[in-house]
């Protein structure tokens, strides 16, 4: 739900967290991204940087130039001036990413976790059981049957937080407890209702069950798509996973290595929140493909 008034939460001596609501409703992400954009256009004294996410935004501020109370009052005013997100239309790129589901690398990583940290059910089966899916084939069909919305970048440089745009593909999964100390680069994971792609080998807490060979961050900027940013995605992009075989995976991997890989991205799209919300309201969101 969307709160009537955003909540301003203490986060140490130089951060605060603004919470707009407590779900993954797309409107909340538009509120968070909208506030971040507004603060870039019309800076508020003391704000150093922000990190908007699904339903909230972290603010890094300078306590030497503003007090917590002053900043909360200033941010409350800016947040109050944002119009309804339902009128927004934004340009939205669509990335097609090859993905090998139930790949040997994530399976090996989970087996290693079971050996060294804690015994657990295999990740695809955790996701199947949590969502009433009967087979890995059904999981693949449901998971790859939607576009994903890039709600924000965080956790790690370039890592996208993704929301399944088609409610019929919405899946939920418990997060690891305790987290993994490692995850293969390119792993695709699900934790709570959020999906993600791990840009490099990092610790992680999402259930992992697929992997893409396409790099999503590139500090050396070898490919043209990284010309303006070392991170492939920006908030408001969409991603479609294209299930592929191990042979295709390795073929793409080779082309990435030798620099001949062509990123599959289309840039003509627009995303309208009102059209999206109207479409969601028109379908049976409980159905599965």
């Amino acid at each position, binding site marked *: 739900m969307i709160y009537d008034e955003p909540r301003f*939460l*203490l*986060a*140490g*001596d*130089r*951060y*605060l*967290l603004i*919470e707009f609501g*407590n*779900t*993954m409703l797309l409107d909340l992400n538009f509120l968070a991204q909208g506030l*971040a954009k507004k603060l870039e256009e019309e800076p508020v004294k003391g704000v*150093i*940087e*922000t*990190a*908007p*996410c*699904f*339903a*909230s*935004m*972290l603010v*890094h501020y300078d*306590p*030497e130039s503003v007090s*917590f109370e002053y900043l909360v009052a200033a941010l409350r005013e800016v947040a109050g001036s944002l119009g309804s997100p339902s009128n927004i239309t934004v340009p939205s790129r669509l990335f097609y990413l090859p993905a090998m589901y139930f790949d040997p690398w994530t399976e090996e990583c989970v087996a290693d976790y079971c050996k060294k940290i804690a015994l657990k059910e295999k990740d695809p089966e955790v996701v199947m059981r949590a969502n009433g899916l009967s087979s890995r084939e059904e999981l693949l069909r449901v998971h790859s049957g939607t576009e994903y919305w890039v709600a*924000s*970048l*965080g*956790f*790690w*440089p*370039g*890592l996208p*937080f993704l929301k399944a745009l088609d409610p019929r593909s*919405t899946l*939920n*999964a*418990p*997060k*690891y*407890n*305790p*987290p993994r*100390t490692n995850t293969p680069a390119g792993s695709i994971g699900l*934790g*709570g*209702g*959020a999906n993600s792609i791990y840009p*490099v080998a*990092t*610790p992680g*807490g999402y259930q992992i069950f697929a992997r893409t060979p396409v790099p999503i961050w590139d*500090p050396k900027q070898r490919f043209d798509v990284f010309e303006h*940013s*070392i*991170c492939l995605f920006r908030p408001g992009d969409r991603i479609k996973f294209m299930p592929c075989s191990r042979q295709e995976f390795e073929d793409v991997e080779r082309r990435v290595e030798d620099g001949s890989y062509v990123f599959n991205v289309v840039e003509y799209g627009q995303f309208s929140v009102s059209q999206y919300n109207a479409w969601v309201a028109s379908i049976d969101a409980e159905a599965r493909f």
Partner: protein
Amino acid sequence: MIEVIKPGLETCIQDWPGRIGYLNQGFPPSGPMDSWSFRLANLLVGNQVGDAAIECQYVGPVLKFHADAIIAVTGANMHPTLDGEAVPLWESIAVSAGATLTLSKPPQAGVRTYVAISGGIDVDPWLNSRSTFAKAKVGGVNGRALRAGDRFKWHAGKGMAGRRVKPSARPPVEGGSPWTIEVVRGPNDDWIDEAGHDRFLSSDWKLSGKSDRTGFRLEGPQWTFTEKAYNKAPEHGSVPSNIVDQGYPIGAINLAGQTPIILVNDGPSMGGFINPYTVPSAAFWKLGQSRPGEIYRFKTVSVDEAQQMARALTVICQEDSIA
């Protein structure tokens, strides 16, 4: 030119406050773990307090200087020697071309030692910072900890030998365990019940060996939660500490399942676990100087007190502290 003869354990280049301005792309700030000792080292050699310098931990490096330099060593005592002769900490010293600085004796107490060079280290900044973020392979020298054979330069400086930090201005890095670590409540403190808060604040927490510059894992009692942690939309995740992914402040006490992890300088900027408390910036030096097995006791402070502590530290890291 400095030549790395022995690298030590993950010795790296950092600047302060680190890589700021890229949080919304997922970059942590990095920077020195004990910015108190770090800033004093720079101050001693006439630098800006944030200039790039060397962070050593547990086992320091052996460095050969190929030109005259003014340097200072601060933080944990690794019993530094210059061509075999003991040199003092907390004091600027002259190094002659050809001399070798050795920091290879593990400290008895404390963990991190800083070496500043007058002028500041001259490696290419990346996203406006020279701080090494080794896990992402960026910053510092080739995006990694120092290796034997690495060579790097420093800028021309105006430092002088014989400047000393007054004893009262030095962090008590050897104070040791149990450490009292200040915390500010929030942002997600309303997910923990009163018994859980009492247990957190009254228990001894042991720093786990599975700790690094991304996070400090703590071992201690179980956490208990309020209704909010159980009655929530399914997209939060099913474990009580799961929340819809959100921005993480540096210093967050991040509750991954039942394991609290203090997110430190190279930590994740976002994620799906609650943060019931946040360690304020002025307490970070204690994290940087504590070692696995040592005990933390947490003490709440208000946001005003936390900001006052940071202000006090800024004052200490100024010229008046130099004798």
